[in-house]
């Protein structure tokens, strides 16, 4: 009898593992938040934040999940960090009160608790972005998603890309509009390691 119970328990274990929510922590070396803004109607200038941290949980059976990402605004980089002949570089200007106001608002936060799935794959995140003290809904589409054990460490890793958009003026960031666009494209490239 004991053997039968033990056998049944063994058979149930894998499915129980899949059904339970899994928790992942973003790998800061492979997770970046990028943004693109129109410049004078000529081109799109892309920048990124070099430092971010966060976690997500996913339950593929229940089709639920949560996400929390903290981005350090002072880590903004647009490839223009050297002053040259100017008093300040563009990255320094972006940290100023004209844009991210990093001294007063050193972090921005994205929290999502609604996740849409296509099968077992998350395809959309609905959450709130808090920037410059203003919280507004932002939806991110998960364009790419893969979970697999790392080739070397064998630890489970999930990675992918997510895209979205927002209007910076809605967060009170109005300097330079319309020469520097109001519409901001967001691209998040991420890899997260299972806890």
């Amino acid at each position, binding site marked *: 009898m004991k053997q039968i119970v033990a056998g049944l328990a063994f058979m149930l274990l894998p499915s129980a593992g899949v059904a339970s929510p899994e928790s992942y922590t973003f790998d800061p070396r492979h997770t970046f938040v990028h943004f693109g803004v129109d410049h004078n109607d000529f081109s799109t200038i892309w920048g990124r934040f070099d430092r971010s941290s966060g976690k997500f949980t996913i339950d593929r059976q229940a089709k639920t999940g949560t996400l929390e990402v903290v981005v350090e605004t002072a880590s903004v980089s647009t490839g223009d960090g050297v002053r040259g002949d100017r008093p*300040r570089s563009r990255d*320094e200007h972006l940290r100023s*009160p004209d844009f991210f106001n990093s001294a*007063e608002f050193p972090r921005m936060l994205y929290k999502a608790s609604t996740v849409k799935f296509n099968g077992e794959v998350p395809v959309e995140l609905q959450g709130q972005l808090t920037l410059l*003290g203003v919280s507004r809904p932002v939806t991110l589409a998960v364009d790419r998603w893969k979970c697999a054990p790392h080739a070397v460490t064998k630890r489970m890793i999930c990675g992918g890309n997510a895209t979205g958009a927002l209007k910076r003026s809605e967060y*009170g960031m109005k*300097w330079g509009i319309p020469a520097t666009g109001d519409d901001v494209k967001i691209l998040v490239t991420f890899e997260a390691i299972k806890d």
Partner: protein
Amino acid sequence: MQDWLIHPVVQGALLPFLAGLVASALLAPLRLAGLAAVAGFATAVYLVVGFEFSPMTTIRKVMLLGLIAPVLGVAADFAFKPKRAMAPLVAVASGALSVWVFLAVLTQKELADALLIGGGIAAYVAWQVGFTLSLHEDSVRAGAAGLALGMGTGVAAVFAASATLGLYAMALGSASGAFLLVQMLTGRRILAGIAFTLTTGLLAGLLGATTYHLAQLPWYVLAVMAPVPLLARLPIPAKWPVWGQAVALSGATLTVSAVACYLVWLSSRGISE
């Protein structure tokens, strides 16, 4: 038209100057010409980002106080004859108020740093308010102080990476220049009063301190700007015409502002770092 209105020179200098000019000329007979300063400042705020006060960020607190100061000033100008103790008392109150303005920034620092920086900033704001306020009975000296404080703080802020703060301060300077110009052209003094001096002293102090906190203004630039209202008290012959007094006093105060701006430029080049 829209392209014209979003030009920084129009937002921070031209239209604030016109607003200051109109306010000075039209309101002088009503003894309200001191509102010229807030007319220029409010014009720039409207054009640059508009009047929004939620959430109450540091810059929005400065905006709010900049709009409240002239109201209190007008009330004081009409309600009572200022006594000698008024300037120091209002200065201390303004210094204390600056702690509230920068609370969100100060609370992110270590206690020792917060006390040192908060105390230094409160002293700077109190100094600017106190010594600018003491010029309330001499509209030419008050105008010269406002012109140099606004222009100096504004250009320094632009060099220190904040165009918004720069335009606000330059608008204050432009409106003060208009206030001075009306007196130079008519050859007659108009009432500056507490409405003008409290607005210029408080806004210049707070905008300078905000640029230090939120942009990259070196602290010693504020120290260089501090003597501006004192220089506006330079003794000059009373028999000089108004335009002569205005030119002499503005020359003295603007020289100090120019030195402050030069120091910011040097620091941005890494020369004093």
